[in-house]
């Protein structure tokens, strides 16, 4: 559906009646967005930036006080002391800062760095599987894609029930499998399957499984990209004696690398902002041992439970900086591994 970039023909001069060079009409049409941008994006951004240097309970305007970079300092202290604690170093500060920021960040990074690659791999494999000429393949495609579309509160509730440690499907199945293994002495007597969402170690993996379930969106993009790979390249590779795996690695992957790039960036940005699952599963509390205290959940609590507007704003900007950093990292590295059409054969 790409339009022609060249003008169709230098034909008769187009009547430009009623339009000034300044383009008032253009601005008029674009005004909804312009107004929205100014009022709901630019000004709020400035306000948020200013607010991050203040302390405010969000109540009376008279109560705003300027505290400078104190919020950022507290978060930074928390992160550095948290890192120190984890790496076994001494914590000497009398005031170790906000350690919860570190915990929230750690949880979010852990989740993102597992969920995104796993999700991409699974969706790529699914796309490869779906990229076959089989009858009824579209039904399967629908089934794999549906969770991504319908995912929301209802599906989170369903997954919570699946993961329920006592009565859920997963643990019931695990216990059924464990019985004979215990009988054979392979598993110790009294072995218990993990507590999933209510256990410190297993709550994030459970969420990662949930997120992989919703990988349908990325899968579609991969599917389209796969279908755009020219057949001759495969022919050439086969002639050179490459097996299926080698074909995949040397032909498919480079050809679809723009799609990988896109999904990676979108995945990182989106996963970093995980909120709904954490809130619904833990009721806002961050779960057992704060294992599900993700960054945006922590931000939400600070803003709407504790009403610490200034601190929460600072947290939001820190999040922005981190996401930007990761995105730039991926973008910069992309020149090394992403091939666009017409750049390389």
């Amino acid at each position: 559906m790409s339009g022609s970039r060249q003008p169709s023909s230098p034909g008769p001069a187009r009547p430009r009646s009623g339009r000034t060079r300044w383009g008032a009409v253009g601005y008029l049409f674009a005004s909804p967005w312009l107004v929205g941008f100014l009022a709901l994006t630019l000004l709020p951004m400035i306000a948020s930036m200013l607010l991050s240097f203040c302390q405010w309970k969000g109540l009376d305007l008279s109560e705003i006080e300027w505290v400078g970079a104190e919020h950022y300092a507290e978060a930074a202290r928390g992160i550095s002391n948290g890192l120190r604690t984890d790496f076994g170093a001494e914590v000497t500060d009398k005031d170790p800062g906000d350690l919860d920021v570190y915990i929230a960040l750690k949880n979010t990074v852990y989740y993102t760095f597992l969920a995104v690659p796993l999700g991409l791999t699974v969706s790529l494999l699914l796309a490869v599987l779906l990229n076959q000429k089989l009858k009824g393949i579209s039904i399967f495609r629908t089934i794999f894609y549906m969770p991504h579309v319908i995912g929301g509160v209802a599906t989170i509730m369903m997954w919570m029930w699946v993961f329920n440690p006592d009565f859920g499907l997963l643990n019931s199945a695990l216990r059924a499998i464990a019985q004979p293994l215990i009988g054979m002495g392979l598993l110790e007597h009294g072995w218990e399957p993990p507590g999933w969402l209510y256990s410190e170690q297993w709550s994030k993996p459970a969420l990662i499984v949930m997120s992989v379930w919703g990988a349908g969106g990325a899968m579609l993009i991969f599917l389209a990209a796969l279908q755009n790979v020219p057949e001759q390249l495969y022919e050439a590779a086969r002639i050179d004696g490459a097996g299926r795996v080698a074909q995949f690695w040397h032909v498919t992957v480079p050809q679809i690398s723009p799609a990988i790039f896109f999904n990676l960036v979108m995945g990182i940005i989106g996963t970093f902002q995980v909120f709904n699952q954490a809130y619904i599963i833990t009721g806002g509390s961050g779960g057992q041992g704060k294992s599900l205290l993700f960054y945006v959940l922590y931000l939400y609590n600070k803003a709407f439970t504790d009403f610490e507007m200034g601190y929460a704003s600072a947290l939001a900007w820190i999040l922005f900086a981190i996401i930007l950093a990761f995105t730039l990292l991926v973008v910069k590295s992309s020149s090394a591994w992403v091939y666009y059409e017409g750049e390389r054969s």
Partner: protein
Amino acid sequence: MTDSAAQRPRKKRGLPGKAVSYSILAALSLSFLFPILWSMTASVKPLKKVYEFPPELWVSDPQWSNYGEALSKLPFFAFLANTLVLVVGATAGQVLSSSLVGYSFARLPFRGKTFWFMVLLATMMLPGQILLIPHFLTYKYLGWVNTYKPLIVPHWLGGGAFFIFLFRQFFKGIPRELEEAARIDGATEFQLYWRIFLPNAKPVIATVTVMSFIAHWKEFMGPLIYLSDFEKYPISLGLHMYNSLEGSWVNLLMAASIVALGPLVIIFFFAQRYFVKGMLLTGTKG
């Protein structure tokens, strides 16, 4: 069986290969569907049986009355109606607004257009949390908290950078001849937009409508922050209410969840290809 250079999937495989593929696909499909199937079993059990171990997989005598009870115990249909109001309000705004703005970027010259377009693209990368608090404060001072306005009005102001981008790409592709002809007849810009471009943009409109509809249907954080009065709750918040402080009616919750999913699944089945198109428009060339 050589294929042309254009999009053709791999060559055909023999029967055993096909069988393997089908079985893998079937197994994967089951694993994708099982949360829903599992919830369905829970939704037809009486409460005591839900908390039974080992759980009954095939419910021998299903209690369909759970569905009736779930829908009446809480004002489920009110939630549904609320969701519709929200979704229709927001989606209509997004479609109208983003097509208008997309048209201006595609076809209307104005000073600084390239600059504003770059700004538009940049806003796509902005995480919403930065704006969360200022938005809340704005709406607080406007007196809009605990109304639907914060959830509908912003979508009329531009409709979101992504959809604007979609429309712009599409409008750019509409042949100039159509435009020329109408212009010679003396059409105004708005008439051009309304009579020529919009009708020709049906695929994009469909895609945007479907994507917007589903996104707003699932919306959770916005209603959570702005709505306090349970009568105004959309389904996403209403489902929460089946968990009371002292007890949890899991079977009713599952029944309600399945009913809540129903409209989405139906829309999805009928409008699949629009959704797919939308995803594809975004991804392949980055």
